[in-house]
């Protein structure tokens, strides 16, 4: 009986220890929800994914997190809210992800946050600008991207610098487009900028923007703010040339899509003169890990990194550092560490997530600037820095 009990106990212990050792070897899963197929902004999705992958490689080379490797589970949102929500549920329930990032579309990020606040695993907006991503003050919602107010302030600053008076905003009917259009009008009023603003909203699935652009042409604007994401952004550039709006008026795009390598293939000579809001210039100084990332990215993809990739990388690093600080993969402990800590990203400015007012809640914002292409085949590295927010 005694011998049998000993044998049974030994077996139980060995099973428990065996399981414990196996659990210790299991990787910590980071979920990446990003648009990898249309109608999402696939180019940015690919870039964020590249950054996250290099981030995971880098973390694992440095010994992992809490002695465990980090593994990515990449999910395609296609820029659709319902697909992103399904992906988040899958990541948390099946893949046991402890952190989720990679969001590019604000709508998808906002929709996921509604589920995340119940399921508890923190999210981080990689390149989502709408205020509501963080303005709802959910404990789980974090972001490392510029929100609507500073972004609108950036192009308004650029508009004032160039002494433009009449401005057309063409914005898609999404959380992103509506938020930015309203914010621009609000700041024009609040700051008494005296701009005459024409706002035209459009459905993001539209394949023809000529009717809208003809209205813009009739308004005779000095500047056009292009608040399309993905295909509509490029369609607007092409068709603005068709109706003769460009190159006469100046156009600024609301994010750094023209930094993508395929911009010049799409637009050729018509890309000259385009201005775009950027969050990083290759002329900016990087942190030590940022430099390391840039070196690896250049070696792997034979091109310099752009912002979405830098942010994808930084998001992975921030979560890894937060887990180390929390000494736990429990969501609440990670959230506490994120709120209390200061983290290294690609920028020299440390990343923090204060419980601040409004959309600045849990938000770290990169520097904002307007870059301008003065000649064909320019890159962000050779583009002119036309305006820097706060200059």
């Amino acid at each position, binding site marked *: 009986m005694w011998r049998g009990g000993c044998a049974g106990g030994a077996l139980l212990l060995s099973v428990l220890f065996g399981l414990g050792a196996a659990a210790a070897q299991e990787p910590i899963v980071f979920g990446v929800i990003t648009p990898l197929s249309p109608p999402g902004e696939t180019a940015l999705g690919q870039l964020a994914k590249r950054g996250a992958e290099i981030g995971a490689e880098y973390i694992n080379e440095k010994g992992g997190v809490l002695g465990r490797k980090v593994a990515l589970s990449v999910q395609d949102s296609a820029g659709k809210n319902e697909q992103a929500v399904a992906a988040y549920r899958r990541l948390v329930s099946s893949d046991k992800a402890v952190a989720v990032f990679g969001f590019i579309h604000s709508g998808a990020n906002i929709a996921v946050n509604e589920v995340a606040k119940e399921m508890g695993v923190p999210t981080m907006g990689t390149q989502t600008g709408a205020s509501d991503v963080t303005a709802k003050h959910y404990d789980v919602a974090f972001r490392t991207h510029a929100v609507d107010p500073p972004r609108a302030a950036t192009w308004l600053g650029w508009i004032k610098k160039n002494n433009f008076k009449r401005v057309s905003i063409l914005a898609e009917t999404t959380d992103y487009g509506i938020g930015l259009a309203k914010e621009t009008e609000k700041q024009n009023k609040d700051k008494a900028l005296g701009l005459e603003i024409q706002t035209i909203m459009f459905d993001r699935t539209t394949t023809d923007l*000529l009717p809208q652009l003809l209205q813009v042409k009739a308004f005779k604007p000095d500047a056009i703010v292009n608040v399309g994401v993905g295909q509509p952004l490029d369609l607007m550039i092409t068709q603005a040339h068709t109706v003769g709006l460009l190159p006469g008026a100046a156009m600024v795009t609301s994010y750094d899509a023209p930094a993508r390598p395929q911009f010049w293939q799409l637009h050729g000579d018509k890309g000259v003169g385009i201005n775009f809001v950027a969050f990083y210039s290759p002329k900016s100084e990087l942190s030590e890990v940022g430099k390391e990332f840039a070196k690896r990215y250049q070696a792997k993809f034979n091109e310099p990194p752009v912002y979405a990739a830098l942010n994808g990388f930084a998001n992975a690093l921030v979560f890894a550092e937060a887990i180390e600080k929390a000494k736990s993969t429990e969501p609440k402990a990670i959230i506490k560490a994120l709120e209390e800590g200061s983290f290294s990203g690609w920028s020299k400015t440390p990343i923090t997530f204060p419980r601040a007012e409004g959309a600045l809640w849990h938000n770290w914002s990169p520097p904002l600037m307007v870059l301008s292409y003065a000649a064909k085949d320019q890159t962000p590295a050779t583009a002119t820095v036309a305006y820097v927010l706060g200059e």
Partner: protein
Amino acid sequence: MIFSTELLIQTLLSGLMVGVLYALMALGITFIYSIVKTINWAMGEFYMIGSYIQFVAVHFLLGPNWWWLAAILAAAGTFLLGLILEPILIKPMYARPLQRRDDYATVVTIALLLLLRNLAVALGGPNQYRPESNLPVVWIGPLPQEGARVAACLFALLALATFWLIIKKTWVGLALRAAAQNRVAVQTAGVDVYRLDAVAFAIGVALAGLAGALLAPLFMVFPTNGAVTTVKGFEIIVIGGLGSIPGALVGGVLLGLIESLGAAFISSPYQNVYGFLLVILILIIRPNGLFGERGREA
């Protein structure tokens, strides 16, 4: 909203031109339905394939001066693909005794849609492309029109005229019209109706491929670019009448005009809604469409 006569004419021209191009897609759908009695839900994917062929031909092989040859190649390429796929996917619907033919056709063409769309993502990546165009701006009176748009519209009209001539003046056209009226009677007359099905399917998807090729420099090339155009194609056949060739053309132009005018002078965010409102109106007033005829089933 700003209103002026010049703006109105410009908007009308824009709507008219895009409507003619939509009509090509609708004609393909309605033509296949007339002969094969099948709705091809993958029509937008043939549009997408046409646009990719146009891009590859112009960008890598021929250059922008030969855009018209690239468009012919795109139509020919999608025609061949249709000729290959029809016997594999659609023919079993008639060659074997199936109880629910419509369900079979729906499932098969939706599966084809998913396959082709995912193949495009796998082969071409998710990014957008645009075939170069060096066509100069065309001035219609004081109004500038993009050269590629005018050329696409004229080419589409030429294709529609060629299609009409083939259907009305050739033996194949006669056989196709006969098959549209009565498949059994055509079989009884000794005509290989399965071969006619393949030809009809191939012509239909070639029209979609041609539309994709002609619209590629205007609306760009990406894996889901056919999705919205397919929806418009179905709207047009409801407006014009299922199976009607003039209905496809008139429906296309009407849809193009109502979308452009609505977006320019009523409210821009509802651009895609105006077409549906027209569809609802037509369904109330004339359920068979403007040129459709009441069907008879035994």
